[in-house]
């Protein structure tokens, strides 16, 4: 609550007008309490909204790729290859679904495109009719890009389902004793990282390759408390993201033109006419991109309920605009 208000309230001398003072003070007190409650509610809602905003998920199926051998690297000075790894870059595809009566035109220069957009409406002559066309930036969605790195250890394994019967120290020892036995597929153990609460452990072996052998099966025999148990073994995998970037895609050279649904010419003619119009500097335009610079969509929409394939545009993320 406002400090000044509080100060004024506290400084109010009751001696001047005792009866009235008491009543007014009571009222003030009441309002202050209400305000404080409101403030609390506001803070709670703010925190809730913020935490809702926090999570937003991306779920992607990584398409299958054909792999080919490229090279064999040799370790540099004391480097140890202890992991198999998989890494790749993920970029969102940014799409825009073009609606009927819309066209996209791409200019050679950004300034031309921006100028066309800022001019707003353009009157294009199409075989005797004046067509009012509006120019807009292409509304594109947000995208994300990141690098995924997954490392699968050749020297460590995860063990779960470890019985809780002995002390922590003893269990650790039992784990080491079971996992070093080569007759069971084990090997010399470098360290055991045991977490009693989750009944799991990470076993690190001295030599690479033991992990693979053990992981051929899903369980491993653990001898503890004069009994044999089967604990579950799984690969020790580290996953991380790098260079994670959320961005909003903007197209600087392409312009969306709307208002073309009623025109009487076909798509090809329409595209040509638009090209001609927008190449003229007098019309606020300029040179258009080489190749099909203009795409006009006039396909009749079917009345059936089946999904209507709409032309989509694939955009790749490039940073040709930024040069460092």
């Amino acid at each position, binding site marked *: 609550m*406002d400090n*000044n*208000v509080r100060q*004024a*309230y506290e*400084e*109010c001398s009751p001696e001047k*007008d005792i009866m009235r003072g008491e009543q*007014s003070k009571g009222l003030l007190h009441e309002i*202050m309490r209400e*305000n404080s409650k*409101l403030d609390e509610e*506001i803070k709670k*809602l703010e925190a809730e*909204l913020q935490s809702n905003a*926090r999570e*937003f*998920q991306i779920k*992607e199926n*990584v398409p*299958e*790729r*054909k792999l*080919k*051998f490229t*090279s*064999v*690297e040799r*370790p540099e000075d004391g480097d140890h*290859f*202890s992991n*198999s790894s*998989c*890494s790749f*870059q993920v970029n969102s*595809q940014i*799409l825009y*679904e*073009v609606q009927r009566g819309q066209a996209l035109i791409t200019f050679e220069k950004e300034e031309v495109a921006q100028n066309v957009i800022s001019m707003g409406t353009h009157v294009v002559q199409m075989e005797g009719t004046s067509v009012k066309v509006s120019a807009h930036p292409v509304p*594109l969605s*947000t*995208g994300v890009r*990141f690098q*995924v790195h997954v490392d*699968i250890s*050749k020297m460590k394994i995860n063990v779960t389902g470890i019985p809780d019967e002995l002390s922590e120290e003893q269990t650790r020892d039992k784990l080491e004793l079971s996992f070093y036995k080569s007759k069971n597929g084990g090997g010399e153990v470098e360290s055991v990282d045991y977490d009693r609460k989750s009944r799991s452990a990470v076993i690190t072996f001295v030599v690479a390759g033991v992990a693979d052998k053990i992981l051929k099966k899903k369980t491993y025999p653990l001898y503890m408390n004069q009994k044999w148990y089967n604990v579950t073994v799984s690969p020790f*995998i580290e996953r*991380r993201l790098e*260079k994670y970037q959320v*961005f909003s*895609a*903007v197209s600087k050279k*392409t312009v969306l033109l709307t208002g073309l649904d009623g025109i009487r010419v076909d798509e090809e003619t329409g595209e040509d006419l638009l090209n001609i119009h927008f190449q003229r500097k007098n019309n606020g335009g300029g040179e258009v991109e080489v190749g099909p610079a203009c795409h006009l969509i006039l396909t009749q929409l079917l009345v059936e309920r089946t999904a*209507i*394939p709409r032309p*989509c545009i*694939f955009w*790749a993320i490039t*940073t040709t605009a930024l040069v*460092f």
Partner: protein
Amino acid sequence: MSVTLQAVLYSLQEEQSRLKTRLQELQQLKRERIDAPRDKIPFPVPEVPVVFQGLTKQSGQAPKSLVSNLKICCPLPGGSALITFDDPKVVERLLQQKEHKVDIEDCRLRVQIQPLELPMVTNIQVSSQPDSHRVLVSGFPTGLRLSEEELLDKLEIFFGKAKNGGGDVETREMLQGTVMLGFANEEVAQHLCQIGQFRVPLGRQQVLLRVSPYVSGEIQEAEIKFQQAPHSVLVTNIPDVLDVQELHDILEIHFQKPTRGGGEVEALAVVPVGQQGLAVFTSESS
């Protein structure tokens, strides 16, 4: 009622009406949030220019993301050799027999043949959230004549100063087209985001840059499947009897012979006993 008390009362009533309005705003936002699609990001994000690629008449079955730069690495043990063949059928044939005998002059090398299991991520789930210690700096003009190092230095200098609203910079990274700065103090990061825009000297020019909260990502799940390298086999248990070059030649000669189950060898790499190697695989089309 005294004048002072009246003033206080008036002030409190005003505050209450302000608080009520704010509460209504938030309640409305909460209602809207529930309807809003989860894909939309509720905080400002930097703009990245993209280029129009083309028109396709496909329906909404387009893949949502592009995977590129796929690289898979597999350590190779000492005393092994990785042989890559032109024809995957050769690999299939060779793998039918675990043990192979390679002839060298008058003796034989007994070796083993294994497939190479390559880890592949088949599904990835990433959740993102704003990182309160980090900010994203964007709005760099094109044609900026600074190297990555120079740019990062200048930004760290500028945003490291309290007089600019900044503070101790702990981490810095160049992401494509934008820069991420991590501060020791999260209040500094938040303060900078609130200011939003800064005129920063970069070399000869003063550039207007935008500072927004940095969203960091975390892998929630990454489904991994192992795929056998289709064109390669790993020959293991090669004893330490020959030098690398000799071994290379002998193995190549042996495994090229169809009578030995082999075929045209595309590549052969030997990892001598006591050493290590890392086999690198990439995807065929990037």
